[in-house]
């Protein structure tokens, strides 16, 4: 056990728990009927600063802090180029879903993305189906996060994998299930600040280690000139680069329910505007520095590290004295925990709200609902824990797979549902089935046709299905159009009407 690393880390985890308890106090003070609003959406009261941080830290996960830098370590700056697609993705999420999403959600009283879809396309296959697909892919995503975290903990602090896993799972589940959305966004903000400091320190440290930028680039050139090329010396086609960078981690972000849900929770349009600027700045900083570091790590720890996912922790240990390393270590951990916490929350809300209450028509009293929400969060955490017990060989492949799956299901129904009046339930079902089904099949049997990432194909399928099937079948009902385009608050819930 490496105590100088463990102590600062423990202090940090304790802080997170304290915030969870604060969230619980706010929850305890809310009236029963406001519980759902507070637990899942923080009472829709987020300002620009907190919104920007919760959005960024939910976007930026083990993928940005561990997985992609590991790829950059072995393949070079091509991953800096690819990852730069996500820098402008935050503006896309906030701007394209935008105020329409925020206003509609208030009109139809929605706190989850599947719920928005279910009212727009009133059919259990959309409401419950999308929620189940969401939980499925988010479970993969979360297990990848915990695996990454525990692996770092093992590499850096000498803590056995399982012990690190227990510690992480326990903390995250605790503050998520106890404190709800408010605790999540507050810890996100704390974690975002920790990430900023950690990443900044790393950048300065690696430059001074190598003796300046030019010197660093020279050394990389001596090791392998291909590391400096934007296409890994020709190994990556531009089609691959564009479809992973700008489609998967760029446009694809629009279809991440744990990210999109942040578009439901800001206080006012001013908060949204401020967040658009802040999110770009912070995303730029994280993305550029972490991907740069991944490749630059070759200079610090030399090539040939066996488990590539340990590159960033090994670099941190090589650059800093142990106590400092323990503080910096909190950065990737923060990235992981903040992502998982928001995912846990949207998964729980999907299962309880969208499947159990809405689709299966179970009436719940508010207090039962509150209990069920917490228990589901706990149970989900348990499942993810079990999945993370046996780590697969590559972390980033799981992350990309999950992002693609979520985007294949949600992106098209969400955008077309918000902005195209003619989009109907059949179109939505067809686009979800063909998009998600197509994605799973392509990824399984013919990965990357023509060098383009699977998501590019499944999105195309999904769009064609949505437009084609919608036009061939009947128009959406007046109720639906009234709810999504009319002036007032929704009177009749189309989803409830359809169920009768």
């Amino acid at each position: 056990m490496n105590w100088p690393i463990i102590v600062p880390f423990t202090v940090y985890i304790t802080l997170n728990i304290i915030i969870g308890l604060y969230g619980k106090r706010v929850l305890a003070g809310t009236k029963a009927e406001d519980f759902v609003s507070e637990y899942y959406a923080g009472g829709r009261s987020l300002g620009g600063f907190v919104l920007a941080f919760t959005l960024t830290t939910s976007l930026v996960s083990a993928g940005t802090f561990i997985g992609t830098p590991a790829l950059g370590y072995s393949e070079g700056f091509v991953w800096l180029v690819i990852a730069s697609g996500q820098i402008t993705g935050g503006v896309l999420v906030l701007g394209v879903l935008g105020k329409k999403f925020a206003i509609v959600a208030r009109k139809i009283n929605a706190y989850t993305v599947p719920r928005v879809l279910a009212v727009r396309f009133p059919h259990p296959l959309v409401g419950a189906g999308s929620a189940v697909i969401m939980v499925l892919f988010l479970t993969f995503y979360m297990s990848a996060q915990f695996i990454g975290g525990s692996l770092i903990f093992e590499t850096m602090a000498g803590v056995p994998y399982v012990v690190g896993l227990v510690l992480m799972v326990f903390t995250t589940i605790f503050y998520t299930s106890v404190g709800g959305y408010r605790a999540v966004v507050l810890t996100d903000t704390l974690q975002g600040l920790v990430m900023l400091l950690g990443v900044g320190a790393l950048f300065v440290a690696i430059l001074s280690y190598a003796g300046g930028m030019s010197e660093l680039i020279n050394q990389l050139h001596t090791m392998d000139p291909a590391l400096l090329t934007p296409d890994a010396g020709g190994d990556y086609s531009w089609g691959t680069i564009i479809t992973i960078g700008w489609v998967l981690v760029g446009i694809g972000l629009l279809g991440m329910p744990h990210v999109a849900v942040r578009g439901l929770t800001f206080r006012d349009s001013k908060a949204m505007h401020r967040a658009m600027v802040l999110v770009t700045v912070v995303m730029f900083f994280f993305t550029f520095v972490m991907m740069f570091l991944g490749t630059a790590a070759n200079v610090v720890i030399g090539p040939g590290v066996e488990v590539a996912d340990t590159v960033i922790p090994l670099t941190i240990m090589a650059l800093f004295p142990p106590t400092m390393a323990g503080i910096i270590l909190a950065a990737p951990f923060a990235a992981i925990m903040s992502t998982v916490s928001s995912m846990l929350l949207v998964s729980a809300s999907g299962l309880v709200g969208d499947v159990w209450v809405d689709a299966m028509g179970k009436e719940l009293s508010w207090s039962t609902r509150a209990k069920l929400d917490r228990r589901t969060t706990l149970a989900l955490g348990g499942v993810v824990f079990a999945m993370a017990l046996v780590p697969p060989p590559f972390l980033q492949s799981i992350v990309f797979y999950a992002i693609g799956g979520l985007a294949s299901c949600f992106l098209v129904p969400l955008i077309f549902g918000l902005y195209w009046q003619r989009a109907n339930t059949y179109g939505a079902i067809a686009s979800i089935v063909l998009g998600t089904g197509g994605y799973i099949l392509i990824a399984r049997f013919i990965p990357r046709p023509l060098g383009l990432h699977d998501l590019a194909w499944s999105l195309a399928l999904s769009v064609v299905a949505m437009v084609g099937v919608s036009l061939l079948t009947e128009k959406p009902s007046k109720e639906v159009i009234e709810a999504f385009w009319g002036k007032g608050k929704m009177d009749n819930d189309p989803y409830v009407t359809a169920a009768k």
Partner: protein
Amino acid sequence: MARLTTEYGIEEDSRYALCVREAVLSAVLFLLAAVAGLGSIYGLTVGRDPEMYGAVLGLPSYLFWGIIITVFTFLLALLVSLRWVFQEVNLDPIDPSIREGVTDG
């Protein structure tokens, strides 16, 4: 094809026209940044060996222009858009024009 709101005789929430404009603008900004970034990265590296990339601040020039400057320009364009196109909108579930009694239908 008539819009369904017209067909059903539904008065549309007056805020949505602006919402659509802002959404389109956000998507256009994203696309322009992608084209500018990828274009300069491709243009500065195609057919060249890494030692011929040139350096800015010690970085290979394509990283400087294709990512740093592209994002910086994107931010400027975003600030300009936020100042001149995006507007403060009341996010209330009920169209504010109803409350003000301007176009109460």
